[in-house]
């Protein structure tokens, strides 16, 4: 199901863990969807000096987290904010369609950690967004008649955004 790069990141994930004195923390997902990703970052001179993650989720979720952490490390905050769904999938040399939502989550979690850092810099308390089960994507999104797969309709609506 997964290609070699994905399996490599899944079996040997980079940057697993937490940063006790993190400058920013971000997390997305919820257990109902099957994926929770939590990113810790350490920022110095506007650069992501360290990135660590913890992930509860499928193989893709773990590989995506690992890849996002690698992509982000050493980048400026602005650069890191440009890490997208597509760039993660590309770096992983492809993901099964039904796992694309995982790549969304990875970038989102990182971005939230950065936002958390930025809010803190401004002295604001950051209200963490709560995820609903609708972040779960749907493998039948690309079928002919979504009306006919009502059990996935909400997920499809979300993932086709």
């Amino acid at each position: 199901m997964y290609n070699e790069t994905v399996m490599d990141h899944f079996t040997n994930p980079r940057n697993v863990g937490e940063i006790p004195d993190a400058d920013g923390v971000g997390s997305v997902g919820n257990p109902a969807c099957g994926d929770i990703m939590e990113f810790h970052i350490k920022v110095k001179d506007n650069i992501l000096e360290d990135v660590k993650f913890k992930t509860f989720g499928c193989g893709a979720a773990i590989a995506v987290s690992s890849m996002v952490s690698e992509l982000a490390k050493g980048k400026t905050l602005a650069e890191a904010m440009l890490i997208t769904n597509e760039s993660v999938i590309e770096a992983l040399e492809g993901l099964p369609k039904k796992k694309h939502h995982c790549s969304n989550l990875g970038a989102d979690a990182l971005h939230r950690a950065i936002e958390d850092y930025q809010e803190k810099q401004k002295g604001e308390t950051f209200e963490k967004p709560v995820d609903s089960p609708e972040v779960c994507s749907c493998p039948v999104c690309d079928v002919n008649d979504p009306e006919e797969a009502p059990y996935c309709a909400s997920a499809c609506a979300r993932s086709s955004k």
Partner: protein
Amino acid sequence: MKIINMDHVAASPILPEVADAMIPFLKEKYGNPSSMHSMGEEVTEAIDEAREKVAELINAKPQEIYFTSGGTESNNWALKGGLFANRAKGAHLITSSIEHFSIMHAIKALEKIGVEVTRLPVDKYGFIDPDDVRKAITPATALISVMSANNEIGTIEPIGEIGKIAKEFNIPFHTDAVATVGAIPVDVQNLNVDMMSLASNPFYGPHGVGALYVRKGARISPLLDGGIQEGGYRAGTENVIGIIGMGKAAEIAIREIQNRSNHVRPLRDRLMKEIPLTIEEVGLVGHPTERLPGNASLTVRYVEGESMLLFLDMEGVKIASGSACISRSLKVSHVMLAMGIDAGTAQGSLLFTLGIDNTNEDVDDVIRILPPIVQRLRDMSPLYKKTGRLKAVS
């Protein structure tokens, strides 16, 4: 690498005798049962023999067995064809909240065209209460459909009691016995069912072939209209090879069923007892004893099923899970939710379904292989905040 298949609910190996019975129909015996000439006849006879064996397996009459393309078709046909033929009774359907997708989604399709549905709850073991069936009956109830045993949690439902109630109210009763027939003895007479879905692979026949039992006198409309194969009730040139395989598999199952359940039950019991001894915070899913003999269903907290399955797969262990990532519809198992298991816990679902090819050694291997995998994933999990530590095997 040694392969340990504990995913028999998805795929049981085809028995060598079954394959041997099928092969002549891949080669010289290619006739069409509908042909007038003798090439068709030899195939017709072979299909009739298969029909007799399948009938015998569930104590039905051969003419009550209609071959289909599998459990899903049987279920769709029973529901859609059963409701249509019984529409004079009304358009109310009673079912459970833990049915297989092929029942659940067929019913959703029926709801779209106006069928009223009552979905009965289950208790923490996954049991449906026959009294709930009785209470749900209305004058418009045209069909009751409750599965015989659940494929994900193993729980065996009180079908005989529900059958009695259905009979008392003269309401047609269908049961999805795809996960049941072949695992435990099933007798349509004792169970008082009017329709029963079955599939061939659970008793070591090929995939993609099944049957619907329709009691003589029960009303059903065809789902596949066309020629008069299967008495005009299920049109289409027969999947000859598959039907022959199903027949042979049924023949063997009739004599082996007791041995098979005696073989897997102690292996299942070991998994259910020993895994929680080696891994903390493991939950048992379903009833401890009233369950399919080869089914061990567990939840491992703080980790997600697919990631466990991937690591197990690398070590040759093939199992299933009710986690959202596995389900392909990316929803956590509705069965576990209906039992009151929270979504997060259900993500850690592990489903072992054992078969005749499993051994005590296989169980040893699983109990050795699984704990480090769980630990590794827990160490990565943001939900697992405590210091995870393996319990020593006692």
